[in-house]
């Protein structure tokens, strides 16, 4: 079956947060108590009970303030770090490109929370498990689009076949470039291809997206290699160098040096 994807066009987003509310309502997520964080942005970050939210960015451009918005959620990566690090086998990738958590299997160790390059996962206080956007798969199965896409009043969120979403995103980028906007597509090849494609009108970093996201397990081999080399060094110095005994085994009868201190 063809892979699905969401296309988020930040140039069309007005920051109304309808997507946030729709997500909470459809998924029955509880409200989160938050304080004022110095911005209209609220809640301040994605969590186990907030699976999508609009990020508010203030950026000064040649003396002019720009107010930028980006809807963030799980990116449904092809090389999904959360799925790789999960020890309980609670995370699956579907053949349509979705990364889905099996809540019954999750033990709430939070490894996926710290492994996600997009910080799109959180621990739910309510369930004690890690949770995130699941592309409203029961809606998709029934021929509907995800709740956030349905709620978006400006057409900033669209959903469908990944190939189509990419074509649409590239067309929009070329249109924006024609207007002199520094536009680009994000998500085509990152981490093997994301299933959330962004149309950005500025650098990814401005929007809080890593320019070159890395899978959490990318450095595993190197780390083990260095650690095991260290094992060899430590076994030699100090252990072998200091504790080795030449010749025959010492007499273990009573009165030897060590036993005498027992």
């Amino acid at each position: 079956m063809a892979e699905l994807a969401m296309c988020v066009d930040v140039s069309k987003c007005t920051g109304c947060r309808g997507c946030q509310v729709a997500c909470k309502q459809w998924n029955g997520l509880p409200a989160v108590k938050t304080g004022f964080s110095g911005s209209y942005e609220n809640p301040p970050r994605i969590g186990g009970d907030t699976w999508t939210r609009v990020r508010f960015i203030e950026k000064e451009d040649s003396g002019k303030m720009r107010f930028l918005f980006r809807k963030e959620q799980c990116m449904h990566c092809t090389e999904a770090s959360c799925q790789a690090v999960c020890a309980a086998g609670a995370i699956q990738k579907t053949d349509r490109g979705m990364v889905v958590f099996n809540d019954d299997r999750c033990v709430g160790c939070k490894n996926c929370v710290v492994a996600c390059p997009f910080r799109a996962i959180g621990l739910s206080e309510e369930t004690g498990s890690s949770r995130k956007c699941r592309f409203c798969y029961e809606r998709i199965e029934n021929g509907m689009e995800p709740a956030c896409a349905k709620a978006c009043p400006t057409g900033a969120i669209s959903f469908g076949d990944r190939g189509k979403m990419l074509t649409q995103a590239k067309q929009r980028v070329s249109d924006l470039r024609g207007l002199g906007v520094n536009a680009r597509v994000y998500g085509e090849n990152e981490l093997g291809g994301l299933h959330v494609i962004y149309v950005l009108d500025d650098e990814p970093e401005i929007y809080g997206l890593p320019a070159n996201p890395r899978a959490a397990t990318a450095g595993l081999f190197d780390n083990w290699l260095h650690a095991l080399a260290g094992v060899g060094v430590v076994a030699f110095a100090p252990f072998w160098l200091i504790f080795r005994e030449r010749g025959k085994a010492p007499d273990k009868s009573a009165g030897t040096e060590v036993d005498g201190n027992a």
Partner: protein
Amino acid sequence: MHEIAWPVIIAIYLFVAGDGVAAFYTGILANTFSKGKYERIAKIGAYIGVPLIIMGLLLLIIDLGRPLSFWHFVLGENFLPLFRLSSTMSLGTWLLTAFTIFGGGYVLTWLAEEDFTRGWPVLKYFTSRPGLRKTLGYLALPFAVLIACYTGVLLASTAAPMWNGTPYLGLLFLLSATSAGLSSIILILAATKSDRSLIYTFSKADALVDILELIVFVMLMIRLSSSAPESAALLLNGEFSTLFWLGIVAFGLVVPLVMEIYELASSKKNVINTVVPVLSAVLILVGSFLTRVVILYAGQANF
């Protein structure tokens, strides 16, 4: 306010697990390389190591969002053993399980010989079984060593720039654990009024590991400064700089090393004093714990 996914309980776990397994492999390696001269150290190491690992496992379970589901780590949906190669946590779970089984059996062979356990039912199977002890000790050894490394690799297989920005975290945690394990043994030796020359030998070993750890710390900071400068700055001159410079570098590494070198020099004049190795061991243990706390928290601060 930063969102902390892995709180201080995980730092305590990383510390006790590293310290515990290091005390264990220190005892076995010292005893093996000395051809049996350090049997008592092997016993001390096992008495430190196995209870600390069991304590560490409990800490891990307590920290889970669903503590009662902890068995999902080892049994899959079909109730068959579950091992996931890409998951460092899965690997760690199996390392800890294997160590607890073999190391636990090894400890029982020692416990069976204690006066206070006379008449305990299960222990009779472990009494006077030198072959069994040796086998269990060597079976547990590789798991102990790998656990010391895995505590660092676990942090490295995440998205936090401070943790995955260098390939040295597993190595650093191995060295820090080894020096903590040696220090724990030194403290037990001092507390049991052991021979000073024995304490001195272990202090010398500790000094060597301390030097290696300092070298790796410098390598790590240099690499981090280029791969994740913001993370490096957090330690070098940011929010965590006081703890880093004073707690870890100065009092956790440099001061104990200077003390150990001083002790080396003075031992030649035959005026060995156990105060110096004991004090340096305490500092190393505190420094080793702070290394975990600072790296764990600073890693999540700019994540």
